[in-house]
């Protein structure tokens, strides 16, 4: 078994050198009242080695589902209907089950949860739970994990000894969130998935925690996926951005490029919604209307058209395909933009 794993870790599974994880034509559906509803539609993207890739979207865009799908953890009534998620050195997780999958989760690929403050067992001390984690992944020296966790805690300005001997209920929401991040980093994963990692924090501790996450990411060259709804966080942290709307990727580019030249009208509205430190906070405009629910996503045409200011006839019937821009690193799917630039 271990020989097989070492073999795998050297394999690239057909990924090009700069790609750590490749998602191809991923479709995730939920079964509600006997109907199959799509949460993710034909999602394809490359997560680059050593970079922070942000996935941004409103609630209901499918971004949390994407995070679960990246670990092949979509649970009933949902399922991965088709598509592949392949990791360098691990293989195709969409084809894995049971013990094989368990060994990867939390070790090679780890996740910081949206509800991180509730991600610990309330009846056991944090330290004991870290040992459980270490033993689950058969680490030769579980105690070393405690030391590593202590270091991480100190870096996040937590009292390491106190945190490790505490129960969850003895810590504040912000402290728990940081402990959640420690759980995500402590086994030195190759890929870190973070689903809204800072929602429970106030603005100040949010930026200090993000600061730490970024410095650890730089140090370890940690491939990171950041799931968020906040373009401000993206601007601060991410190298690349994938914009998700109603289960579809609508635009992808490097952060600098995307902020400077957003092409999709939805991306523009997200950027306009960033509150600025200088100037009138009233200038920050949120997009009007509601994102579609799973059941109301149109099956043909552009998924964004109901809220789009540039809606055209063609948007009703034909799904816009991706156009590549600049050096081919920027893609978007919008009929209006396409027409404007041709």
């Amino acid at each position, binding site marked *: 078994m271990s020989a097989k794993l070492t073999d795998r870790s050297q394999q690239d599974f057909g990924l090009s050198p700069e790609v750590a994880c490749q998602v191809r034509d991923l479709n995730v559906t939920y079964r509600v009242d006997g109907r199959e509803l799509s949460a993710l539609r034909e999602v394809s993207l490359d997560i680059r080695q050593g970079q922070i890739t942000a996935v941004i979207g409103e609630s209901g865009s499918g971004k949390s589902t994407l995070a679960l799908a990246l*670990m092949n*953890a979509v*649970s009933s009534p949902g399922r991965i209907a088709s598509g592949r998620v392949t990791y360098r050195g691990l293989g195709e997780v969409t084809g894995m089950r049971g013990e094989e999958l*368990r*060994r*990867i*989760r*939390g*070790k090679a690929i*780890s*996740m910081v*949860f949206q*509800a991180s403050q*509730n*991600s*610990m*067992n*309330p*009846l*056991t*001390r944090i330290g004991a739970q870290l040992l*459980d*984690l270490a*033993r*689950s*992944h058969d680490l030769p020296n579980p105690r070393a994990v405690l030391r590593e966790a202590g270091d991480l805690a100190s870096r996040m300005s937590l009292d390491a000894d106190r945190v490790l001997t505490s*129960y969850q*209920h*003895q810590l504040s929401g912000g402290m728990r969130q940081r402990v959640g991040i420690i*759980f995500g980093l402590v086994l030195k994963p190759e890929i870190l998935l973070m689903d809204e990692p800072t929602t429970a924090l106030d603005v100040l501790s949010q930026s200090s925690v993000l600061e730490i996450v970024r410095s650890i990411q730089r140090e370890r060259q940690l491939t990171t996926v950041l799931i968020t709804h906040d373009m401000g966080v993206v601007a601060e942290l991410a190298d690349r951005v994938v914009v998700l709307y109603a289960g579809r990727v609508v635009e992808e580019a490097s952060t600098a490029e995307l902020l400077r030249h957003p092409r999709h009208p939805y991306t523009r509205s997200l950027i306009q919604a960033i509150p600025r430190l200088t100037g009138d906070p009233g200038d920050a405009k949120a997009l009007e209307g509601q994102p579609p629910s799973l059941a109301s996503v149109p099956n043909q045409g552009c998924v964004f058209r109901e809220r789009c200011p540039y809606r055209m006839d063609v948007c009703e019937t034909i799904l816009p395909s991706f156009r590549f821009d600049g050096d081919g690193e920027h893609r978007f799917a919008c009929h209006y933009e396409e027409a404007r630039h041709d």
Partner: protein
Amino acid sequence: MKGLLPRLIKRILGGIVMILVVASFTFFLIHLIPGNPVEAKLMQLETAGVTPLRAQIEVQAMYGFLPHQPLDIQYIHYIWQILHLNLGQSITYAGVSVTHLLLEAMPWTVITVTSGIIVSFVVGILTGVIIAVYRDRGISNALTLFSTFLHGIPQLILALLLAFLFTTIWPIFPFGSPYDAVLTPGFTLPFIGSLIWHAVLPVAAYAISSYGGWALTMKSSVISVLGDDFILASELRGLKPRIRIGYIARNAILPLFTTLTLSIGFMFGGSVFIEEIFDYRGLGYMLITAVGNLDYPLMAGSFLIITVAVIVANIIADFVYTAIDPRIRT
């Protein structure tokens, strides 16, 4: 571990207050019994030719107070005697102290009831976990139905049916006494074996009567814990199934301790049937005998001791609960 001891002390004090309230209740109850049994006993002794002084001493020994004293003095005497673990003298078993009778009766009840609780708790919890985990399969529905059905059968009927089925229709178990009459009680293998063999049906009656409740409560508790964020987190962190089951089990068992309190009272209460039917000379049997023979000191004592047993069992349950759940300790 701070907070554990103060809580325990608080519970014990609460228990003592409760015992005193129950003692007061039995005191006034004896005064409410039609025909004033204490006065009647005194008269009966005197007409039987006992000297008034002698009669008074005997009645005082039985009840702990004398009828012609003022009520407050009677009450103080009564409670004072109880605090000295003196519960008076039995009338049926003439001259024998109630405390002595009940100390002999207690093990029969406490051991069978405790075994019954433990067996039903363990089996019920396992069933509940199976029902919850295999929620969508046939076995889950079958077990739910089975548990619901057993949950509905009262102890009385359960005990009668067990006795009838397994001692008369299909006689595999002995019936009618807690051990073989030919054996001399003692620490001998045949005697202990006989005790256990005779205890199977009564313990089964206790266990089955509360098993369904545990299974159904555990089922909903597990289902609710399975939906908790930290359980999903433990899965995505790749924790070993063994460790995850431990997380789920400990969290799911906690809410059951509330039910345990009720169950303990229910089980000790049921001893009146089960001991009557299986002829166990336990506390419930003593209570019935006392009421049947108008032996009021024994009745009051039995009732008090049954209540004390329930209170003590509850304090133990609370202590275990506190030991499992850190949120209460701090």
